[in-house]
């Protein structure tokens, strides 16, 4: 009760401070400019209280934090129809199950495996992960996962993606969930932009370490692919492969134009001043692999939130969803690789670094 009263007082102060001004503010400018953009003070109808339980916690107007976020951000392509080629990926994919038969056995690529299963009761299909109960490699409860698990809705860290930093506590997590590693150094591509090889997020350092706040068991553990800012994950000779690789059988590339948005890397920068969203430059040997080199942050068309279908041999011929899959549409097939032209005979994108094709 005391907490609710305190919240009301704080929100009223915000309203009086901001609401009397004629100036219009953009949301999240220097933090959230308007408390009442997401919280409601007057959720009543002609003086009557709205039906009990219909208003989200903390006087949010959405049913829950993610529903509140998606009120705006769904329209920015974060939860669309798969045709929005955003850097993090479209949560649409977690609503899509694909099934097919191979070698006489049923196969599936389930929506659960296509993304972080954020819970948004106001949206159709954004439910808790039905398979996993905790974060793979960690303890974060799947039934508490929302946009607010990674992004601080009030932006206290000051980074443009509102990511939590070291010692921050994930909003609304029962009993508290404290982040150990700081927010990564990177520039996001923008919430409304379709990413390309020349217009993309730019990564400096700390992304894998930040992911390890919830997925610690996957971070440079024995038997795991290296990722992060340490010698084990440095590209070394793989940088030459990355820069030369154009396609299967074509190693004529050069560093100046070798960057693939589909397979980004960190350049090791410890501040954002030198990062360039429009760079087409490939890595040098000190660049490093990170979690997001192979996985998208939000969702993708593929299992394990892969940037591509990890189980294929030939990408064009073997990737699911295929139009013959139950649950697939032609648009899904067209959008799964972000409109990227995949040449016939192209083998797995693992080869961008490893050239085993």
């Amino acid at each position: 009760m005391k907490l609710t009263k305190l919240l009301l007082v704080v929100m009223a102060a915000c309203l009086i401070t901001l609401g009397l001004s004629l100036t219009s503010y953009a949301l999240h400018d220097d933090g959230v400019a308007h408390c009442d953009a997401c919280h409601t003070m007057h959720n009543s109808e002609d003086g009557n209280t709205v039906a009990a339980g219909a208003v989200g916690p903390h006087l949010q107007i959405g049913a829950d934090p993610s529903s509140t976020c998606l009120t705006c951000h769904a329209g920015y392509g974060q939860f669309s129809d798969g045709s929005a080629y955003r850097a993090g990926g479209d949560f649409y994919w977690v609503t899509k199950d694909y099934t097919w038969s191979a070698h006489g056995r049923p196969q599936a690529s389930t929506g659960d495996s296509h993304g972080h299963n954020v819970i948004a009761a106001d949206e159709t299909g954004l439910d808790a992960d039905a398979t996993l109960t905790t974060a793979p490699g960690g303890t974060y409860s799947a039934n508490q996962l929302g946009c607010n698990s990674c992004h601080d809705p009030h932006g206290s860290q000051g980074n443009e993606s509102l990511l939590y930093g070291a010692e921050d506590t994930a909003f609304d997590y029962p009993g508290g969930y404290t982040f150990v590693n700081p927010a990564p150094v990177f520039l996001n591509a923008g919430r409304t932009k379709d990413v390309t090889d020349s217009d993309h997020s730019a990564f400096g350092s700390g992304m894998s370490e930040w992911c390890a706040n919830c997925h610690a068991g996957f971070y440079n553990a024995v038997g795991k692919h290296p990722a992060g800012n340490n010698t084990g994950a440095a590209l070394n000779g793989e940088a030459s492969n990355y820069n030369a690789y154009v396609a299967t059988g074509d190693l004529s590339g050069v560093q100046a134009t070798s960057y693939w948005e589909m397979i980004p890397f960190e350049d090791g920068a410890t501040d954002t001043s030198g990062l360039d969203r429009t760079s087409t430059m490939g890595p040098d040997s000190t660049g490093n692999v990170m979690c997001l080199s192979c996985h998208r942050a939000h969702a993708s068309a593929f299992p394990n939130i892969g940037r591509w279908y990890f189980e294929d041999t030939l990408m064009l011929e073997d990737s699911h969803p295929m139009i013959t899959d139950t649950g697939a549409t032609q648009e899904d097939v067209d959008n799964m690789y972000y409109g990227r032209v995949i040449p016939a005979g192209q083998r797995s994108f693992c080869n961008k670094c490893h050239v085993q094709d």
Partner: protein
Amino acid sequence: MFFGAVSTDVMAAVETSFLYSLSNTSGTIPYSWANLFIDEERNEIYVVDTREQDIRIFNDKGMEIYRFGNDGSLGTIVDVAVKKDGSILVLSRRRPKSAIILCNFRGEPLAELQLKNLPSDLLNFSPDRIAYRKGLLYLLNSSSMRIVVTDTNGAFQKDYDLGSLVGVEDKKRADTQIDGFSVDREGNMLFTIPVLFAAFTLSPDGQISGFGRPGSAPGRFNIVGGIVADDNGNYYVADKLKCAVLIFDKNFKFLKEFGYRGLRPSNLIGPKNLVLDTRGRLYVSQRRSRGISVFQITHRPQTAEP
């Protein structure tokens, strides 16, 4: 001051009552944030379900009478408009430019409408919304904040740079974006910009007016969505976060708001797109599979403020 802007007498000038939700024989169709179009010639309502990728047509009783587009033949459907002769224009998302597909009354594709005589700076124009009014097509790109007006054959007539009119720099347009968009009977273009907490009207001769202030008190905007105008000049603005539809008179004076989040039939959850038919019925698309709610709008002679 802050909370004293509402007059009880004025609020009574427009009355709203819930009628029903758009349905088929199985019950209410659980749309989430579908796009809407009213075919005034035939009193039919078109609903675009971008998630299911189909277009359904409803009669004036709110019952589904036809469905098309779900065979993939129209690509990624994003919006629809209907010409006076009943032929259908489907806006389909493609890269690098979206396509306007002319269909017959069955929704069968006939041809692709090509935009002609575009100015050089609009050669790559790619609309994501379409509206039809009195023989003209109004095409909006919500990210670049541009409107192109053509005739029904796609021949360029005029364009409007909404970003410049509102004062949004080029580099900030994609993150600003237009949400609600419609064209009233006089050809005025109505649109909303959520991050500015504002709604705007733009006359055909380029005169722009805006209204709206941020806040959660009655008459203030949280996150605005669709906007339409009735024949009396009143404006109806959906507010997705406030879960209400706000009504303003022709001078942008707040009259009332209705809906509010809840589970009663007359409540609204995340109202986004609005259309108004010729009989004063307001159609409201919502999220959370709440479908399309239909309200009767009734006007009473307005009494003077005390």
